[in-house]
């Protein structure tokens, strides 16, 4: 009964709350790079203090499962849209389209990001992630550009997601409250995008 309804609502909750937390954790931890190598390495070592089974459980239940569900069901949702921002170039329609374009980019980006850093480097080779490792990784300018774009895409997708979450759950009903949330979430988007640039720059400063 009403499988579509519950899947859609779960998709919405999962994206905003669970994956939003994952995004914030990434931004928070990575911001430590702004304090230099010791800053990031200390933060990463702190995370290593979490007992392995709990950490793995968190990775599986808090990231892998929600991400796979949100991603796969999201692909199904994105395929139901026939993006038409050129015919109907309203701001919200552009955001609708960007929500889907960033989603497609993130599918590819996250396969690369998780596949390389988590599965290959940390999993297969057993190398712990560190400031030096990332600094080395970011020697390639293409990697840097793709990582900044990946972060920006995720941040926009999340922030625009706040606006649409509020509509989907009927929290913001009229155009005025919807615009207020939209402006706030886009300010958050701009701020987080700047933070990303700042911590990415620190790999070239230190």
């Amino acid at each position, binding site marked *: 009964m009403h499988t579509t309804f519950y899947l859609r609502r779960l998709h919405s909750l999962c994206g905003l709350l669970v994956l939003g937390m994952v995004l914030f954790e990434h931004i928070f931890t990575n911001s430590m790079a702004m304090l230099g190598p010791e800053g990031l390495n200390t933060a990463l070592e702190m995370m290593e203090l979490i007992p392995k089974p709990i950490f793995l459980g968190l990775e599986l239940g808090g990231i892998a499962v929600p991400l796979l569900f949100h991603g796969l069901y999201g692909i199904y949702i994105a395929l139901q849209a*026939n993006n038409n921002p050129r*015919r109907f170039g309203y701001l919200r329609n552009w955001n609708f389209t960007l929500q889907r374009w960033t989603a497609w980019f993130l599918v590819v980006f996250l396969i690369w990001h998780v596949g390389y850093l988590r599965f290959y480097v940390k999993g297969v080779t057993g190398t712990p992630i560190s400031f030096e490792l990332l600094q080395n990784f970011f020697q390639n300018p293409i990697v840097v550009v793709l990582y900044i774009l990946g972060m920006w895409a995720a941040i926009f997708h999340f922030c625009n997601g706040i606006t649409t979450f509020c509509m989907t759950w009927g929290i913001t009903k009229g155009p005025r409250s919807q615009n207020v949330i939209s402006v706030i979430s886009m300010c958050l988007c701009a701020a987080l995008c700047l933070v990303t640039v700042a911590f990415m720059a620190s790999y070239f400063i230190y």
Partner: protein
Amino acid sequence: MADKVRFIIERQDGPNDKPYTQEFDVDYRPGLNVVAALMEIQKNPVTVDGKRVPPVTWECNCLEKVCGACMMVINGRARQACCALVDEIQQPIHLAPARTFPVIRDLLIDRSVMFESLKKIQGWVELDGSWEVKDAPIQNPYTAQTAYEISHCMTCGCCLEACPNVGPQSDFIGPAPTVQAYLFNLHPLGKFDAPKRLNALMEKGGITSCGNSQNCVEVCPKSIKLTTYLAQLNRDVNLQALKNIFNF
């Protein structure tokens, strides 16, 4: 000032035929609208190349933006042809059928899918009799304004044409039929069937297919606050889901 108005019309001979375009010139006159221009073309269906062709087919009834029948894509925008004044739109004027719906011929489309959607959401009030006027249940005066606004919907299909989530790739019933559920839920007798309508909206192709692109509210020729009522219905279906789960 030009005495001729150029129309570039996307035509199609049958439901499965390939579309092609033809251009027509129509004598300008003050107050000319797209329907009147199509009537001129019908009288003398000669293209700008001087070729006599079958007249352009389209649909219209009321000619005063009430019936919804003459909805077509004019200069890329879904709107009513009867109130599209030549003086107010860019020339040459491009006309095309609203391809969200099956095209029957030229600008004539089959909009019956919206009627099927209205059946799905129970877009009517169940009655088992009638009252004397003085005994009839009254409209809530606090929601009458809203009900009146939504009742202006003429199922023209502009919102479905503009919605990126309506089309052959999706089973979304679209903004217009969805918001009609709210109109009938506001009705003093219709409200008894509100759970039925909300449950129907929770099905595949219902309100959950809305992706908040908000094109619908931009193009609605009757200025119905579609997105506001969609958000209200989102509240209502969430509450209905809780009622379903906890059986209250």
